[in-house]
C-alpha cells in the first residue's frame, strides 16, 4: 500500500516535471539560428553569388590585425578598399580568398570617395564583375563578406540611393552657453569623448580667442570656423588662460569618434565607421557588417558587384559606393600612379 502511494507520488512528480520542461522548451522555442535571415541555411541559398563574394574579397591586415576588406578588381592584382580605415596604420599585409597570407601595397588614396587603390600579386581570387545600375530597387537581395571574410552576410537594399552630406571635423569641446558680446572669446566648459582638444592639453576654463587668423567673438563664430575643416585637418587655435595667450595646433577628430558616442542611436549601434558621411552617391542596405568589413564588394543575387561597402553608419544602415563611382575613382587613382 505504502509502495503504491509512493509510486503514484513519484509518477505525479515526474509528470509535473516533464510538463515544466515542455514549458521551458516552449519558452525557448525560437526559430533556430540557422534558419534566420543571416543563418547558415538562408545564406547558403545565395549560391554562386556567395561563392563570388568570397572569391573576390581579401582581408587587409595591419600588423596581424584585420582592419578592412578589399575588393579584387582585375587579374593584375589591383584592389580597392576604404581609405580612412588605413589611416594611422602600417605594416600592411593581406589574406587571400584561399586563406593565404599575401603582400599588399597601398598605391594611392582618394579623399573624396574614401577609396584606396591597392596592389597584390596577379591572379589571386576572382575579380568582381561590375553591374552599372543607377538606382537599385528597395528590397533587392544583396550579400557581402563579413569581418575577416569569414562568412557571407545578406540583406536587402533598404532605402533610396542618394548623396550623404559631409561632416566636418570636431574639436570635441562643449562651450559656455552664456555668450558675452562685450568679451572676446568663448570659454570651454567640458570635453566630449576622445576630444582632440583635451589631448593637446587644452583645459576647462580656457578661452578660445582665435581660430587660424579669425578672431572669435561668439559660440556661433567658433563653430562656423571649425565647420570649414575636415577630420584630421590641423587647426591653429589661440587660447587665453588667465592672462596668458597660448597657441595650440589641434588635429580635428571625426564626429563619429566624439559626439556620436553620446548619441542614443549610435550607442545602440555597436561599432560604426569613423567616416560615414561625405559621399556623392551611396546605395543603402541593411547587411549588419562591422566597420572592419568595409571595402569588400556588395553583390546582387546574380553575383554581380553593385559597388563597394564604404561605411557602417548605424544599427540599421550600411552604405556602399555604386560601381560607377568606384570605377571612376579607380581610373583616377591609376592615372595618378603613372
Amino acid at each position, binding site marked *: 500500500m505504502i509502495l503504491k502511494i509512493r509510486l503514484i507520488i513519484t509518477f505525479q512528480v515526474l509528470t509535473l516535471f516533464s510538463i515544466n520542461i515542455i514549458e521551458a522548451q516552449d519558452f525557448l522555442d525560437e526559430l533556430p539560428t540557422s534558419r534566420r535571415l543571416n543563418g547558415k541555411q538562408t545564406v547558403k*541559398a545565395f549560391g554562386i553569388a556567395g561563392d563570388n563574394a568570397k572569391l573576390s574579397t581579401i582581408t587587409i591586415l595591419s600588423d596581424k590585425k584585420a582592419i578592412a576588406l578589399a575588393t579584387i578588381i582585375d587579374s593584375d592584382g589591383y584592389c580597392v578598399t576604404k581609405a580612412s580605415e588605413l589611416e594611422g596604420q602600417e605594416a600592411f599585409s593581406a589574406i587571400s580568398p584561399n586563406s593565404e597570407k599575401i603582400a599588399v601595397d597601398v598605391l594611392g588614396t582618394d579623399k573624396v570617395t574614401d577609396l584606396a587603390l591597392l596592389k597584390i600579386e596577379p591572379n589571386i581570387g576572382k575579380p568582381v564583375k561590375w553591374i552599372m545600375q543607377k538606382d537599385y530597387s528597395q528590397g533587392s537581395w544583396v550579400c557581402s563578406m563579413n569581418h575577416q571574410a569569414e562568412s557571407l552576410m545578406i540583406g536587402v537594399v533598404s532605402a533610396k540611393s542618394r548623396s550623404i552630406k559631409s561632416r566636418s571635423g570636431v574639436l570635441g569641446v562643449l562651450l559656455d552657453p552664456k555668450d558675452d558680446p562685450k568679451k572676446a572669446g568663448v570659454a570651454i566648459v567640458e570635453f566630449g569623448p576622445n576630444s582632440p582638444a583635451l589631448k593637446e592639453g587644452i583645459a576647462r576654463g580656457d578661452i578660445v580667442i582665435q581660430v587660424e587668423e579669425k578672431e572669435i567673438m561668439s559660440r556661433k563664430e567658433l563653430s562656423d570656423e571649425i565647420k570649414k575643416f575636415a577630420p584630421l585637418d590641423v587647426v591653429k587655435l589661440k587660447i587665453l588662460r588667465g592672462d596668458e595667450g597660448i597657441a595650440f595646433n589641434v588635429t580635428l577628430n571625426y564626429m563619429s569618434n566624439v559626439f556620436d558616442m553620446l548619441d542614443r542611436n549610435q550607442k545602440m549601434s555597436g561599432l560604426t565607421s569613423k567616416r560615414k558621411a561625405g559621399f556623392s552617391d551611396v546605395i543603402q542596405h541593411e547587411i*549588419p557588417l562591422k566597420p572592419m568589413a568595409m571595402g569588400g564588394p556588395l553583390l546582387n543575387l546574380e553575383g554581380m558587384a553593385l559597388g563597394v561597402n564604404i561605411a557602417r553608419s548605424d544599427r540599421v544602415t550600411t552604405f556602399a559606393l555604386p560601381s560607377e563611382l568606384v570605377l571612376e575613382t579607380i581610373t583616377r587613382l591609376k592615372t595618378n600612379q603613372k
Partner: protein
Amino acid sequence: MRKVTTASILIFHFLYLTPHSYSSPTNTQLKHPVFEKRAPESPEDLLAIEKQVRSVLQTSKKATVCIQGNGSGSGVIISEEGLVLTAGHVSGEPDKKLTVVLQDGTKLEAKALGRSSAADSGLIQITKEGKYPYVELAPPASVFKGDWIYAVGHPGGFDQERGLVLRVGRVIHRSTDTIQTDCKLIGGDSGGPLFDMLGRVVGIHSRVSMKNEQNYHVTVRAFKRDWERMLKGNIVSLDDSFAKIERKGGFLGIKRVSHPKGILVTGVIGNSPAAKAKLRAGDIITHINGAKIENLNLFRYLINKNGPGDKVVLDTIKRWDGGNGKVEVKLGNRNDFIPAKQPQNLGNG
C-alpha cells in the same frame, strides 16, 4: 502485423511533419513553395520572397507615417479616416497634440488616443479630415514562427531624401503580446509597422535587444484586446490588462500550469469549488463553457468573467478516473479563500 506497424509509423511521421508547413494561414495564400520551406534553398527561392515584398511594399509605405511630438517615432494608418497604430511610448499621453508626417512630407495634425503601458500599444487619430492611404490589419495571431515578414519605419527620424527604410526577416518567436523577429530596428522605428508577406500589419515595432538581429514588436492581438479602451483614450496598465477586464471575482481554487491541451491542475485548494467538483492534481482542463483554453491568460480571463455563485462547465481530461468529461462547477468567492491584501501600515507601529 509488422506491415501495419510500419504504415502507422509512416502516417504518424507524415502528420508530425506537415503541420509545420501548414501552420500559417498566410502561407496558404502565397503560391511559391519557398513560403512552405524551412529555409530558402536557391536564388529562385530568395527572388520569390523579394518579388512578394516588392508587390506589396509601395502600399505599405504609403500608409506608414512618422509621428512627431514625443521625440520622433513611426506609425501606420489602418483606416481611411486616419486611425494610426503606433507604440504606446510614441503616442504618449492621451489627447496630446502630435504631428503625423506622410511619406511625401505632408504634415497632418493628430492627437493621441489611449495606449497600453503593459503591451506598449498605442492609437493616434489624424484630426484633419480626409481620406488617407491605409493598410489592412492581419487577424490576431495569424503570424507564426518562421514566417517571412518585413519592417518599415523612419529610423533616426523623417528623411525625405532617404525615404522609408525597409528591413526583411523572419519571425523568431511569438507570444501573446510580442513578436520577436530578426528585422533590425533603431530609435525612430518605434511604432512602425511589421508586415506579413500579404502586406497586412502583424505587429508594431516596440523594443530592441542587445543583439542587432533580435528585436520586438507588439502583436495585433495585444492591440485588439485593449482596442475599445484605447479608442476611448484610456491608459491600460499591467494591472488592469486582459485578465482583469471583467474581474467579477469568481473563484475556482486550483493551482495550474499551462499545458499543450489547455491547463494542467497541479494542486487543489481544500473545500474550494474545484475540490467540491472533485478536480484533482493531474487533471487537464481543456474548455470553459465550450471555449478552448489556449493559454493561462485566457483561462484566468474566462474564469474571471464569472462572479461568485455562477456556474461554469469545464471540459476535463481526468488523470485518475480516466476519460474525458464535463464538470459543472459553482464558483466561489475569492475572498473566502484568499484574504484580500491589507494596506501596509506605515505609521508609528
